[in-house]
């Protein structure tokens, strides 16, 4: 199945249907150890179904899958001993305290009794839950629940961590903390399978991304690879005198290789009498030529910013295909 010694997940034509509806359609992907792999798609794209199949809690309708070289349909319990799954909803029993929750799962995952208390205390501290460690989860905020669920996911120090929408509904501070945790995990060589519909999150954290729509993978690769494969999304933004904006748009629209010149009209683009124009289809290497053109036509330049194609560009471009 094309796996190497460091390959931890391989799927080949992995498919799952619910009646006539195909949730995951012929997914073929290989994930290496230590990689942060993003599974990017809208709600209902098949992300959660894939996580379930990879962990042997949902049977595939067709296709092959191996995790750590094991078949999840027959060795699910062995795989789950080495993976941690943060489910989309925290799935916490509101009648237990945070400490009881972690101790309970530590016992289920077979964390040795002598290490349990230390491990639980470490995670409570890591996720800043020590002060509420003995409070019932029912009284926790959404952010605290998510942090506790993440702590539970890591209780047995898993090799692969599946995170299903880990920052959904969190405030910016909690999101930053979750991102920091994911970065720490990757520094420790853990493999992270990140399901998200948050493009910025995927772009920031993932080594590679699979873009998913209606159960099908539209593309897999790094953000840069995906951008260049689509040959679109390269652009530069120029900050010029606001009064020259109409003239600049006309000028650059006729200047190769610009595919589109547009004035940015939102509030952030207009300040101190200057305005921003975005030139699409212009890569970093063509920036000097664009500056030269501006100077030749007496346009005052205050700032030039080449921009790589964002994941957002790639995502929407793929959706349009």
């Amino acid at each position: 199945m094309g796996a190497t010694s460091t390959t931890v997940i391989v799927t080949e034509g992995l498919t799952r249907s619910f009646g006539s509806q195909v949730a995951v359609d012929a997914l073929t992907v290989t994930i290496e150890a230590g990689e942060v792999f993003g599974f990017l798609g809208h709600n209902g794209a098949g992300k959660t179904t894939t996580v379930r199949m990879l962990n042997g809690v949902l049977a595939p309708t067709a296709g092959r899958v191996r995790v750590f070289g094991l078949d999840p349909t027959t060795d699910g319990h062995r795989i789950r001993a080495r993976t941690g799954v943060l489910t989309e909803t925290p799935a916490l029993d509101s009648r237990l305290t945070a400490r009881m929750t972690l101790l309970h799962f530590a016992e289920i995952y077979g964390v040795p009794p002598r290490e349990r208390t230390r491990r639980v205390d470490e995670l409570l501290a890591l996720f800043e839950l020590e002060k509420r460690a003995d409070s019932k989860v029912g009284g926790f905020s959404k952010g605290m629940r998510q942090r506790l669920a993440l702590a539970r996911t890591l209780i047995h120090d898993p090799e692969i961590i599946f995170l299903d929408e880990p920052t959904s509904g969190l405030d910016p501070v909690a999101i930053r903390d979750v991102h920091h945790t994911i970065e720490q995990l990757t520094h420790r060589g853990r493999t992270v399978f990140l399901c998200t519909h948050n493009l910025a999150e995927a772009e920031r954290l993932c080594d590679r991304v699979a873009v998913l729509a209606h159960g099908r993978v539209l593309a897999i690769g790094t953000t840069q690879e995906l951008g260049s494969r689509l040959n679109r999304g390269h652009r530069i933004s120029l900050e010029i005198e606001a009064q020259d904006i109409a003239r600049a748009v006309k000028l650059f629209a006729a200047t190769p290789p610009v595919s589109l010149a547009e004035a940015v009209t939102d509030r952030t683009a207009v300040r101190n009498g200057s305005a921003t124009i975005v030139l699409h289809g212009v890569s970093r290497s063509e920036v000097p030529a664009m500056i030269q053109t501006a100077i030749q036509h007496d346009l005052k330049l205050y700032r030039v910013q080449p921009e790589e194609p964002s994941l957002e560009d790639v995502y929407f471009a793929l959706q349009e295909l």
Partner: protein
Amino acid sequence: MNWGAVWAIARKDAMVALRTRAVVLPLIIVPLVLMVGVPVLVGLISGMATRLDVPSSDMTELAQSLPAGFGEQYAGLSEVQAGYIYFILYLFAPMYLVLPLMASSVVAADSFAGEKERKTLEALVYTPTTDRELLLAKILGGWIPGSLVGLVGFIIYAIVADIMTFYVAGRIVLPNPLWLLLAFWVGPAAAALGLGVTVIASSRVNTFQEAYQIGSLVVLPVVLLVVGQAAGTFILSDWLVALMGLVLWALNLVIFAIAAATFRRTALMARL
């Protein structure tokens, strides 16, 4: 078998269920009404009838259906006094089984369907337990509290019944072999039956109430036992109770074998 995980899940299920009002209330109210309220009420009426020397009309008929040796054992008692002891020892005996049945059903309903309702089941299915371990954990989590409630109910009943039979007839009647068999042999089997049915029901419905209602249907055979004995169709004897326990355990084996063969977390997740 990963016994550590099985025990952890079973212990947590039992502990958390016993902290839940919807579970605890029936576990307190039903034993109080059944094991205390009924014997006290009937005892008070019988005691008053004895003291007022009220003639009994049905005792001749009752005497014909009394178990062998009962008449000799309680010779010298009035018909009302003997009737009360008969009620305590025999007529009420099948009702006792409601206790372990109900207790295990209510905990089991909380365990599977309750977890689905609270959306906590998904975290559990991702643990490194096999399907059989998960099922066994859920069964033990209901069976242990169910059996314990049954045993505690028996102790309470024995104390209350002895106080009341002493008040009515000046005799202490419990424990006797029949009730010991009921408490330690048939009761745990009834608890297992209640939870077996409820666990199977729980994996197919989505709320605690639905699971509990389906699980409660296992109380129906108990009602038949009560009616059958009251109608004089049969009288419980030590041997009959021992046989009843054997049949229940055999039935449990069949139910759990079916559950083990059919329970799949993959099927459970497909419905989530």
